[in-house]
């Protein structure tokens, strides 16, 4: 079946099996391997992307369901060679160790932070309930998201 969508601002079209998951479409058809497959059971959030502006887990969406939508992946966040403020904050605050969860964390965090420059620790922990990290113990992730939220609003 033919599906077309706008991915990171670029129009794409492919002929796919109806059972192809969106995460496989992004990784295997488009070569966008930023969204990772961790649990494959909608728990870990490492496959999180933006679908029409909301954060969703792409391991639990069919590519055919995303036909005609607009998708942003971690690869689409940086602009003109500059990291997105949330990416920069993860770098600055050491919000990652192995990095496997990071693309999903950042995609969830950018939505959490949009319009909320002053997130509390609790809001961040609650808002990232859908994302698991096996390395950091979350402490630096919370710091990174807090700083990233402020930077997104224009402050530092």
């Amino acid at each position, binding site marked *: 079946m033919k599906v077309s969508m706008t991915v990171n601002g670029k129009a794409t079209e492919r002929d796919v099996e109806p059972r192809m998951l969106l995460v496989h479409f992004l990784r295997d058809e488009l070569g966008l391997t930023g969204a990772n497959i961790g649990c494959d059971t909608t728990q870990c959030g490492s496959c999180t992307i933006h679908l029409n502006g909301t*954060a969703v*887990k792409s391991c639990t969406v069919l590519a055919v369901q995303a036909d005609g939508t607009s998708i942003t992946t971690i690869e689409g966040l940086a602009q003109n060679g500059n990291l997105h403020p949330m990416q920069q904050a993860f770098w600055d605050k050491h919000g990652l160790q192995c990095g496997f969860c990071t693309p999903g964390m950042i995609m969830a965090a950018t939505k959490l932070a949009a319009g909320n420059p002053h997130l509390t620790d609790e809001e961040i922990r609650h808002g990232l309930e*859908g994302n698991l990290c096996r390395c950091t113990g979350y402490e630096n992730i919370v710091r990174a998201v807090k700083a990233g939220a402020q930077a997104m609003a224009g402050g530092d």
Partner: protein
Amino acid sequence: MYPPKFDYYRADSVDEAVALMGQHGGKFIAGGHSLLPVMKMRLADPGVLIDIGRIDGLRGITRSGNSFRIGALTTHATVAAYDDRHFPDALKHAAGMIGDPQVRNRGTVGGNVAHADPASDLPTVFLALGATFHIAGANGARSVHAANFFTGLFETALAENEVLTAVEVPAEGIENGSAYAKLFNPASRYAMVGACANITVSLTGECTACSVAVGGLTPKATAAPSVGAALVGKQLTDDNIAAAAALVLNDLGGDVMGDIHASAEYRRQMAPVFVGRALTLAGHRAGWVARLQKNVKDVAGDVLEEIERRLRK
């Protein structure tokens, strides 16, 4: 993990969905957040999926008269963010307790109740609120009351070829309060025990009506009439609430479920605790004084509406 192979059709209207189902059989897919996981685990292999996720008119919440109509495709995130002081608090908060933000962005109210997972939150809430389910099928439309909608483990009154179009819940007035309390599965966030209380109080704070339902521990959402009956006519004191909540054990039936996450006995012990919490919270939300504390401006609006309503009568 690919799901098993299937043929895929997309419906642009409810009529088309019903017709496609008549022609090809299979299963409807809305958000896919219950169906795709079970297909990936090979627990379901419907062969045909009919995508109803794009049907216009099945999405969103509208107020009509004294009730709210929630389109079947409305996401949990939309319900949790819905801002209207007459919208039932229990429903708004239960929707916000489902899974995690990403799940709430994709999962739909219709899919949640049609799937009727015993660990789901919304069936319990809709039962306590006395919701009405609007259904479309080949022979036209029909409506089913919550008491008759949930028929068993993963079973509802929906026939294979029927589409749930909307769920309707009564608006909350000044004298009403509702709340949902949940013992979370710490990993999945599903309910191990969920309790919903829907209370009406008089001007003097006496409970005049009380509807309670529980889920998570029984095969389907289960009404607890013993609890309500024990509270009606009484003040909502801690002692009265605790005594009434304990009676939920009379209403659970013989089929309390346990698993690796929590034994049946543990869940049974927790049922009165969570019923008590839901009653307490609902009690705090009901009544003029409670509403006044919540928001003076809202109450001024409520008082004016109430006066208008009485004048019209």
